[in-house]
């Protein structure tokens, strides 16, 4: 058996608690049903938390934290660890004072309370939300040695809310209303332009995630859901939607969230999150602890529709096998894929490759760089390589 040095897993079991002995928790009363009216994870899971990268941003309020995807066991991200990206901190909004305004090219500008919106026909849907900058630090080379940091700007929850279409129709969109602008109620007043076609298609105004109210850091009491499109557009604490005939070219869709190409031109309105996947265990945080049979797991998604297939390679992309996908596979939702593998102490170069229902394929970093260079910042959906060394330790490496 190979054990990486310093692994918490190495903690020796206490023989007092092993059969034939009977541990204390098997004899004496545990906590009562009144212990935690709102529950929390076990004290032994205290490492499963959001983390941030201090050097990434100037302030802690205009910054980001990362979902511990290495510890996720299914496609649902529990609300407690859903990554957050704020531009002026997480706003604490009193839902009684919350208002949503619709103005611009509408028959009648309207102001809604939260209850007004909840009285509209609503739906629940699972969607992933990925920041366009997820894996953005990896454009030039392998930088961050942890899948939480390379791929953790993502989460996947069940949203409940009203279709944006319903709300827009209530105000009555004028024939020349071709765009909307969504505006946040936080101190950044985050604003983004969205084409009317998408707004009327599958966008939602959501008040719940995973069955309960949105968390403050994720937009409580109301956020925009823009399925499959970059997270920055999913305006949190949304206070206003304006209908217009042209896009706004807000700071977040010009200065930021545009993709600079090697020729100095930048791609504008790069909304879709392309097919992507990553092996979450093994990963730098999850070394291979045992020789013999092991299980590999990972997450895959496509902003263009359903994941059709995920392939896995253990030899740096020379040979691939199809992984097993957890059911159900839903539109624009994460999928967990799994594959058994034998570890004999050999070096492995692990990769995964997602293909969506439209046949769009997750590319290699070489293929991406050939087209987009290394200053693109956003939309890095390239194949990730993990080196598993002879001790079972895992490192983020770049092949070439």
């Amino acid at each position, binding site marked *: 058996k190979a054990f*990486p040095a*310093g692994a918490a897993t190495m903690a020796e079991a206490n023989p007092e608690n092993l059969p034939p002995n009977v541990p204390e928790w098997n004899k004496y009363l545990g906590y009562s049903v009144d212990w935690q009216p709102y529950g929390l994870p076990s004290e*032994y*899971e205290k*490492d*499963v938390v959001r983390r*941030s*990268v201090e050097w990434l941003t*100037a302030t802690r*309020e205009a910054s980001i934290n990362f979902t511990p995807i*290495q510890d996720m066991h299914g496609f649902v991200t529990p609300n407690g660890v859903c990554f957050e990206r704020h*531009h*002026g901190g997480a706003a604490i909004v009193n839902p009684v004072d919350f208002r949503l*305004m619709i103005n611009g090219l509408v028959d009648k*500008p*309207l*102001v809604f309370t939260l209850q007004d919106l909840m009285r*509209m026909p609503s739906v629940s849907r699972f969607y992933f939300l990925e920041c366009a900058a997820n894996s953005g630090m990896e454009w030039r*080379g*392998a*930088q*961050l*040695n*942890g899948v939480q940091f390379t791929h953790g700007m993502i989460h996947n929850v069940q949203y409940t809310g009203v279709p944006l279409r319903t709300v827009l129709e*209530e*105000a*009555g969109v004028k024939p020349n209303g071709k765009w909307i602008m969504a505006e946040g109620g936080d*101190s950044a*007043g985050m604003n983004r332009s969205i084409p009317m076609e998408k707004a009327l298609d599958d966008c939602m105004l959501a008040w719940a995630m995973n069955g309960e109210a949105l968390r403050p850091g994720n937009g409580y009491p109301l956020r925009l859901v823009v399925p499959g499109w970059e997270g920055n557009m999913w305006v949190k604490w949304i206070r*206003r939607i304006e209908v*217009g005939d042209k896009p706004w070219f*807000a*700071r977040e869709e*010009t*200065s930021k969230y545009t*993709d600079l*190409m*090697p020729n*100095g*031109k*930048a*791609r*504008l*309105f790069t*909304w879709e999150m*392309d097919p992507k996947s990553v092996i979450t*265990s093994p990963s730098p*945080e999850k070394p291979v*602890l045992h020789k013999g049979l092991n299980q590999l797991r990972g997450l895959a998604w496509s902003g263009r529709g359903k994941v059709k297939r995920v392939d896995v390679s253990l030899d740096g*992309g020379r040979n*691939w096998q199809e992984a097993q996908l957890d059911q159900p596979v839903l539109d624009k939702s994460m999928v967990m894929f799994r594959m058994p593998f034998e570890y004999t102490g050999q070096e492995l170069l692990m990769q995964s490759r997602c*293909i969506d229902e439209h046949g*769009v394929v997750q590319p*290699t970093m*070489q293929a991406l760089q050939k087209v*987009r260079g290394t200053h693109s910042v956003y939309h890095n959906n390239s194949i990730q390589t993990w*080196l598993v060394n002879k001790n079972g330790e895992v*490192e983020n490496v770049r*092949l*070439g």
Partner: protein
Amino acid sequence: GDGLKLGLGTEATPEQVKGWNIDVRPDGKDAPVGQGDAMEGEEVYLEQCAHCHGEFAEGAGRYPVLMGGEGSLAGPNPVKTPGSYWPHASTLYDYIYRAMPFGNAQSLTPDQTYALTAFILWVNNVVEDDFVVSNETIGSIEMPNADGFIEDPRPDAQPEVVCMKDCDVPTEIVGRAAQIDVTPEDGGGVAVD
């Protein structure tokens, strides 16, 4: 609208809309009445902005640089600033009013915001020091990189075939994150699972 209304929500009064309708579009739509030039802007800037963005908008610490970068976009070290990158002057007004100064949003007057816009355009050599930015002019300022943006051609970088066996790919390790050593110390480590 198709006339089939749910009857929910309350009509927004013009006054209500005015209070929240803070956006300004490239064509100047919805720009509030007001004006300011670079010299007026500099005064506000030094008081409310310089400690984060630098006296000359050159940035401080990790705070954004607001000037320079011309001609750098195709080079090895692109510097994206309002002068070098932003396609529209309106974005300055729109963003500064809604989000700056950081932590005290929507506190500037329209005149102050026009003046700050003029100041940042001036340090970027986009306008002269006596140019007055106002609701009248903001929609017609030519930005250096106005033509710098293209449509999104994705999906791109697609393989010709999806190879499954004996694929001809480079498998030499050319970079290692552990050597770069920028990963936060408490990286989650290994736990029970």
